[in-house]
């Protein structure tokens, strides 16, 4: 494609190639080295600050030098698609999902999960998912019999998360040695504070069934709990139902569950 470019674009291409990879790419011809060095520094520093702000744990776990090298590799190897600054950390995640990120340095297996977990906080805090509250009965508690045959409404910022590592416990002093299947729920409460809740696999399954797919395809609370009982091969349906309802009522008190559809 470079052959179709206008002369000034050829120059721009050489300019940004040098900024992205100053070790391998040569400076554009006849350019002032001091001037282009300013660009090399401001582009990298901006990107480094934007990425680092979202991943405080990951950068501490990797250590200063490895983190710096990783962000340098991000600039060198990733073409970011989004003009929105808020999405720079998301671009970093898609870079981490590429093979090229581990070409020049050995990265821990849990790094992607940890970074994803750290990014979720940003994604949930700025989520603009909305729900039409006029369609929701927020008064009727989940424990009310009438609610059983309705569909459950979750807070629209909710994300159900499943990781191979206990990401919420990772710190420089506590780096995971083995994978541990981990399920979490993240959401933003009415005070706009992001909260995480640890889930067991059954609750995770329950919430996945209740929140999955389109509203008109979703199962009612009762149908879902019966399905869970069936999946667990439990003949005592009523104890599963009452156990499930207690969990959902607890999530309602935490503002994860908003109510039921009218």
């Amino acid at each position, binding site marked *: 494609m470079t052959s179709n470019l206008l002369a000034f674009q050829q120059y721009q291409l050489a300019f940004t190639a040098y900024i992205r990879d100053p070790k391998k790419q040569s400076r554009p011809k006849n350019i002032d080295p001091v001037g282009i060095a*300013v660009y090399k520094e401001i582009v990298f520093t901006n990107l480094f600050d934007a990425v680092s702000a979202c991943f405080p744990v990951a950068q501490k776990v990797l250590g200063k030098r490895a983190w710096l090298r990783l962000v340098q590799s991000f600039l060198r190897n990733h073409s970011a698609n989004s*003009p*929105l600054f808020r999405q720079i950390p998301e671009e970093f995640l898609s870079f981490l999902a590429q093979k090229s990120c581990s070409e020049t340095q050995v990265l821990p297996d849990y790094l992607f999960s940890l970074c994803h977990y750290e990014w979720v906080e940003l994604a949930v805090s700025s989520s*603009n998912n909305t729900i039409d509250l006029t369609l929701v009965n927020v008064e009727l508690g989940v424990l009310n019999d009438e609610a059983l045959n309705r569909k459950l409404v979750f807070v629209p910022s909710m994300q159900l998360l499943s990781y191979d590592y206990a990401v919420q416990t990772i710190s420089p002093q506590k780096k995971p040695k083995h994978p541990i299947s981990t399920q979490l729920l993240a959401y933003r409460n009415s005070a*706009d504070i992001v909260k995480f809740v640890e889930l067991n696999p059954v609750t995770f399954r329950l919430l996945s069934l209740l929140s999955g797919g389109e509203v008109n395809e979703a199962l009612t609370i009762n149908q879902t709990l019966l399905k869970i009982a069936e999946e667990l091969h439990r003949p005592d349906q009523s104890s599963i139902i009452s156990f499930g309802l207690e969990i959902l009522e607890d999530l309602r008190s935490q503002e994860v569950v908003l109510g039921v559809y009218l």
Partner: protein
Amino acid sequence: MTVTSPRMHSHVATSSVSNITVQQPLNAIRGVGLGLKRELIPQIQNAFGQDYIANINFVEIAPENWINAGGKSAKQLDWFAERYPIACHGLCLSLGGIGPLNTDFLKQVKTFLHQYQIPLYTEHLSFSTDAYNGQHGYLYDLLPIPFTEEAVHYVAKRIRQTQDILGQQIAIENTSFYVKAPISTMDEPTFLNAVLTEANCLLHLDVNNIYVNSINFGFDSHAFLRQMPSERIIYSHVAGHHTQSQDLLVDTHGEDVIDPVWALLEDAYGLFGTFPTLLERDNNIPPLPQLMHEVNKIAEMQASYDK
């Protein structure tokens, strides 16, 4: 089509390219404004209605920071939109960039401008995207376009495309630079004027950027000012900068405005009449009462030229 002085408009900003009008008049942006930084938001909210911030007439935001934001940010933006006129100053449109203009993004900008009744959208005369290894990518910074004939036509065409999509004129900011493109065939005022004329767009005059470039490239900032097309000036910025060396200034917006930049703003008001002026402070932000000294200084300067 000729452009009348935007400062003379008494009604709505109408597009040169379609009949769509924005909901707020362009002259809602007047007097002095302040860049809406996260650190300043709670301070302005707490001080709202108090005399000492009376000279803040409008606020400015970057659409790249606010589009599609929910939660606390959305509530803050609603709060400001109800109380202040808002100007939009973009960073990533990449008017001089390789690869097609991001029209999906521009449509989001258009929706955003209408949603918050924002009458003014300005962008930089720079590029922020590349095509490294054949892939288009954002670099999230303002990079210098070489001043060539081809670049004039290319950028002007993209500004026109932008105005077509938005259904309104946009303003282009003269950008600060740190390196001269060896392939440039004209100086900055010639390039800027050629783009403005060919694109038929407005000028967002950044006074600090003129000064920064005058030191970085050794020209007379006041002579530069005299080459600017008065009738296209709709908006301006003043800011502080970082002195890296005697002949290299970096546009950090992290310091107080210096005297030569104040003198340049005053010269501009004298030459062209006053225009809405925004104080940019992005780093090393002092508390609001201290920042108000500079806001008030702009207001006083405007008052003395508006007499």
